[in-house]
């Protein structure tokens, strides 16, 4: 059975037989197929944007889309509403997932955020009031020798130059290592492929971001992540190329469109906003192509990614509304995230 209906050169292409593990997802697929219908669409976003103020947007969310915006008849802030909604998605996914550990890859980022905050506080020597996430797999130094090693490494590196960025740098790299460990353990092609794509996209964004910041390639190599489909050398070797040469060099690679978007941003001296949107859209589009898969992990991943995207778009709408940004501008800003 052909599992994915994908184009040629698709990184997600996998032709194989229906596995026993895939059948386990039958119930979750059915459940999420219903819930997926309640994910906001373009018209819903437009309606939320044209609302007069934040309160009206919240009212619309509650009345039309079933979000819980009140706690004992008291209006809750939009940030709390989005947080609660995401926690409920997290609980739902973990409740439905036959193998819960696989879905850790979507929530490790929150655990790593908490770890960063705690480490920065420890190394700064005083408490810093920074919010933590209450979701994400628990990372305990006591029970994980790997984590203990990472923390020792961070402390050693930090005390050399006292640069807090080194904490981010090491933990970001380790974050992908943690994801790869999960992928290696379960050997699910779609997960392996997804993680590689995440690494590639992170590197592409870094590549163009550093170009905008006019940093040298040594600096770039410090931050590039390993484990993607493209080696770090690829980015380092093409870093100093002129935009026209870069365009030529990257026109046949898998991420040609993303490179082209980045190059356009560089040429027009605009922000990398469009590239960031394209990167987010890239993954969502890949998973939109897996709509017809019934047995497998893909519908769950698709639902999760769409929910994350929904949260992001809602956050942007609320930020826009709260700061009296015009409706057109908000619409323009979130336009790139529609899939």
């Amino acid at each position, binding site marked *: 059975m052909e599992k994915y209906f994908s184009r040629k050169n698709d990184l997600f292409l996998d032709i194989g037989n229906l596995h026993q593990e895939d059948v386990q997802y039958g119930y979750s697929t059915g459940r999420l197929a219903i819930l997926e219908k309640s994910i906001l669409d373009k018209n819903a976003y437009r309606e939320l944007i044209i609302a007069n103020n934040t309160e009206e947007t919240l009212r619309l969310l509650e009345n039309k889309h079933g979000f819980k915006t009140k706690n004992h008849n008291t209006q809750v802030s939009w*940030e709390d509403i989005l947080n609660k909604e995401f926690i409920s998605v997290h609980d739902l996914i973990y409740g439905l997932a036959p193998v819960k550990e696989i879905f850790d890859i979507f929530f490790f980022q929150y655990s790593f955020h908490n770890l960063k905050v705690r480490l920065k506080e420890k190394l700064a020597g005083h408490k810093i009031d*920074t919010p933590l996430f209450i979701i994400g797999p628990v990372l305990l130094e006591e029970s994980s020798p790997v984590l203990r090693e990472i923390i020792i490494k961070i402390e050693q590196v930090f005390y050399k130059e006292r640069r807090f960025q080194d904490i981010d740098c090491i933990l970001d790299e380790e974050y992908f290592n943690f994801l790869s460990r999960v992928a290696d353990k379960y050997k699910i092609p779609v997960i392996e492929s997804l993680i590689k794509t995440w690494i590639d996209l992170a590197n592409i964004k870094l590549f163009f971001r550093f170009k905008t*910041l006019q940093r040298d390639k040594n600096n770039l190599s410090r931050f590039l992540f390993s484990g993607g489909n493209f080696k770090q050398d690829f980015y380092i070797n093409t870093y100093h190329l002129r935009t026209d040469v870069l365009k030529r060099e990257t026109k046949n690679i898998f991420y040609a469109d993303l490179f082209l978007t980045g190059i356009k941003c560089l040429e027009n001296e605009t922000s990398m906003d469009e590239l960031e949107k394209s990167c987010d859209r890239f993954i969502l589009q890949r998973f939109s192509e897996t709509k017809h898969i019934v047995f497998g992990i893909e519908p769950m991943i698709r639902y999760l990614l769409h929910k994350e995207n929904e949260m992001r778009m809602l956050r942007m709408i609320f930020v826009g509304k709260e700061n009296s940004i015009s409706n057109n501008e908000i619409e323009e800003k979130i336009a790139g995230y529609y899939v």
Partner: protein
Amino acid sequence: MLADVSLTRMNLMKMKKRYAIALRGHKLLKDKQDELMRKFMELLEEIKSYRQEVENSLEKVHKQFFWAQGVMSKEFLEEAIMVPQVSLNLTTSQEQVFNIQTPKLDFHIEGDIYSYGFLFTSQQLDLALDGYKNIFPKLLHLSEIEKRAELLASEIEQTRRRVNALEYILIPELKQTIKYISMRLAELELSNQIRLMKIKDIVRKH
């Protein structure tokens, strides 16, 4: 109102001297006021256009920061900027404009403003921080010139009060006193003269 002085020639001379000084002082203060006013108007024009420029840039930068808040969640954003690696050295000195001591602010930024990880942060944050960094000298300059305008305004107010006091109180008062003393002295002289003539007349008759 007349100054409380005894009617002597000495006082008349003193009053005339004071009157001359008051006139000269008034002219000088008037010139100073005009010049201060001219400077103030120039500064006002500069502030107006500069403030407009700063406000526009600030609005743009704020917007970039809002969008960074939109793209990244609050937790990630706050974590990114929780330990800034930038230090700012601000030195203050004074500059003399007319006789007013106006503040002068000089600053020096050290360190990297992008002192966070790049994986969970958006480029919008880079742009916003870069914008804030670029706008900071402008904000300081704006505060400098606005303070200068404030000090100029209070100096103008003080000078105006002095000019008015000279113009409407001291000078007319001195003028009136001089006139009064002169008239009284003239009157005394006339009466003395008449008295002398009368005495002379009486002496001649005898």
